[in-house]
């Protein structure tokens, strides 16, 4: 209640005549033209008394009494017994006589333009929720009804640090721009509400509306699992189309459907090459997706590292011939047992030899060296390229890093992935190089 209520009381007999009154009531009644032993002078009070006597139940209601130049909003309670009626009167508020009485106030209306509306009682429990709200805001309306508003919304402070709905509740006023988050869907919204007060002017709830919140200035960090899903979708969405682009470009380049202008054949070759590069990138991203997952695991099987190196060299033989580079694989004739996953080890070796071929000048040699080093089985891929400065040697194992970003080809993911795989198998991948001296990539795995 807004202010300490003034309490007045009186007693009337079986014929509704005033037999007793406290000072305040007697004065009020006298100002209205009444007195002891007479009927109550205020018609609304007389009506309540009459009703209580005849209904024989306590009658309580809000009445507004005109008292001199003021109107008094009162809560009246009349209790009848065999010999008369006892009247209690709480003056809730005194105000100038020209204002509308409180009990004639229209019911509150929900804020205009809301996406969906709701109502609460005085305890902020949701009494009504527009059923569409479930779909619009992403929560279960059925579970929300009858529950506290705060069960549905997490209320946030506004820019000024205050919580508008709580201020409005305390002051019995309307509010707007209450930031909130729908708990179930984590959707951000703004709430506005019109206050509902009861006959005594006490807070009795809000008739409210929900509005979409403006986009936050700082976007939330994307969730990690969303990223994973992104890579999976990328794979599905890109691999097929890219495959078709590459195949069509290849057939144009080869003149499969009839001769084409040599310029166009070259364009087609460029298209095919770019497509292959993108396909490689998709493969790398899918790999990245796999190895960065917490549950990533490799198999630990016995393999022959020399055999793996030989096979990798064989896979790249055509590219080596194209590049005019010789692969020296004499060392691969002697078996070198190691522990790891065959497929992953092959992937590492292909990556290392592929890099070596890419950076080797025409006529150069790429050496494959295999050796046992204590409890390690080691494969070394050495090239005669321009080498890697010491400063760059750590960087090349980072994600999306390349020795020379201006060089065509490569996603900058290959070495990062290769090292992650090697370490997952209990081994490592390191580099040893100096500018102008070529590079040596050293893969070590546990020896079998």
């Amino acid at each position, binding site marked *: 209640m807004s202010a300490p209520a003034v309490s007045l009381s009186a007693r009337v007999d079986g014929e509704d005549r005033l037999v007793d009154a406290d000072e305040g009531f007697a004065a009020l009644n006298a100002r209205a033209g009444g007195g002891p032993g007479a009927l109550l002078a205020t018609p609304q009070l007389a009506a309540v008394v009459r009703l209580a006597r005849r209904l024989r*139940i306590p009658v309580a209601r809000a009445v507004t009494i005109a008292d001199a130049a003021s109107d008094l909003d009162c809560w009246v309670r009349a209790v009848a017994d065999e010999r008369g009626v006892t009247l209690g009167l709480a003056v809730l508020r005194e105000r100038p006589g020209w204002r509308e009485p409180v009990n004639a106030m229209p*019911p509150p209306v929900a804020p205009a333009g809301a996406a969906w509306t709701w109502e609460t*009682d005085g*305890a902020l429990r949701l009494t009504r*929720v527009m*059923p569409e709200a479930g779909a619009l805001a992403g929560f279960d309306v059925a579970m929300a009804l*009858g529950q506290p508003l705060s069960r549905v919304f997490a209320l946030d402070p506004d820019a000024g640090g205050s919580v508008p709905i709580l201020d409005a509740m305390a002051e019995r006023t309307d509010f707007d721009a209450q930031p909130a988050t729908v708990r179930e869907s984590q959707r951000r919204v703004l709430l506005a509400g019109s206050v*509902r007060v009861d*006959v005594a002017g006490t807070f*009795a709830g809000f008739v409210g509306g929900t509005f979409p919140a403006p986009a936050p200035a700082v976007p939330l960090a994307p969730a990690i699992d969303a990223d994973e899903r992104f890579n999976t979708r990328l794979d599905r969405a890109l691999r097929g189309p890219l495959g078709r682009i590459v195949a069509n470009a290849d057939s144009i380049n080869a003149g499969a459907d009839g001769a084409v202008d040599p310029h166009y054949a070259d364009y087609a070759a460029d298209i095919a090459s770019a497509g292959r590069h993108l396909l490689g990138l998709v493969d790398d991203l899918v790999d990245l997706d796999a190895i960065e997952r917490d549950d990533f695991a490799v198999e630990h099987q016995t393999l022959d590292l020399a055999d793996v190196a030989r096979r990798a060299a064989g896979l790249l033989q055509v590219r080596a011939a194209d590049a005019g580079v010789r692969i020296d694989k004499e060392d691969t004739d002697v078996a070198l047992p190691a522990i790891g996953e065959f497929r992953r080890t092959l992937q590492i070796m292909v990556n290392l030899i592929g890099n070596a071929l890419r950076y080797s000048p025409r006529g150069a040699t790429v050496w494959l060296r295999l050796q046992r080093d204590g409890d390690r089985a080691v494969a070394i891929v050495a090239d005669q390229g321009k080498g890697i400065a010491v400063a760059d040697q750590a960087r090349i194992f980072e994600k999306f890093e390349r020795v020379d970003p201006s060089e065509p080809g490569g996603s900058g993911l290959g070495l990062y992935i290769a090292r992650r795989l090697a370490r997952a198998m209990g081994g490592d991948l390191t580099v040893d190089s100096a500018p102008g001296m070529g590079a040596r990539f050293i893969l070590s795995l546990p020896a079998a």
Partner: protein
Amino acid sequence: MAVEVFHEAPVLAARMRMSAAAHHAEARLDAAVADTQLDDAVRLDDESRAAVAAMLDAAVRHAADAIAAGARRLLSGNATAISALADVSEVAVALVGSGHLAERELMRAVLAEARLSVLEPALVGVRAPDEVPLLLPRLADHRDPIVRDRATAFLLADSRRRRDAAHPPELPAEVERRLAWLVAAALTCDAAALGSGVEPAVIAATRRHLSARNEDRGADAAAMRLAAALDVPLAETGTALIDTLVEGRLRLFAAMVAHVTRVDYSEALAATIDPDAATLLTLLRSAGVPRDDLARIGLRLADADRMRDADMLPDAVDAAGALTVEEAREAIAPLTFDRDFRAAQRIWTRR
């Protein structure tokens, strides 16, 4: 042969305007005369009248929107036919003003909805300062899962009903059917002459609109199911009914009255919203509700309803309270008769 006088065009137009004005003046006078003859006890208060107009408009618009949209889909590609469909807003205005809607059963349903829309918030408004509604939390957390489910279903349906002022009222199937066909005819009133294929499309759309209605989803049906699940013991009926009034859930109140007295829901609702409490109090008495609870229920409704006169209440309460339960049951027996029979009886007694 009389000499024909041809007025100049401006004069003719002025005469026509004057004639129209005179016609309207007469109509207004008729309305004023009829109004003075109306007993204050039966005249709608302004709030209810505004609500009735809004509901009627909403009912027509809802049907017209649905049927026109359905017809447009069926006619897609046929621009001539679509343009022959009457404008929905014009249809609404024309139908409401035509007098064709002054049908007793339609008005009965619309009036009931309008009265509910006025009374329910008013009941909340007359709560005592320290009075806390307890029904809703109690039902939402009820230990019986069936009650919980049905309470939730009712709260949802009731929220749906109260979505906004322009929400179409829930109408009985037969009333809805007649209204839909009236709307369909109004939608095609311009198109008939064109023979553009509009009519079959509108007819198909109307059938579809009517078959899509689902009475089970309505707030009335949900309230009845909840009342059945609650199955309040007779001794607690009075208190439970007062709780529904504190919440301002008159449909649930009516459903509980119907459940406990075995009268049709529509009869219980009609008695609930009737400013004359005699029928409601007799119904409640037949369920064994004690006199003081009759007084409490009557007083709360009277305080919330501008159409009721609280000074008349004590006599009505005393009269109903003086009946034994058996006497009250006998008195309400006609209300338990078949609904259609009751409707026919009403027509017969009005002759």
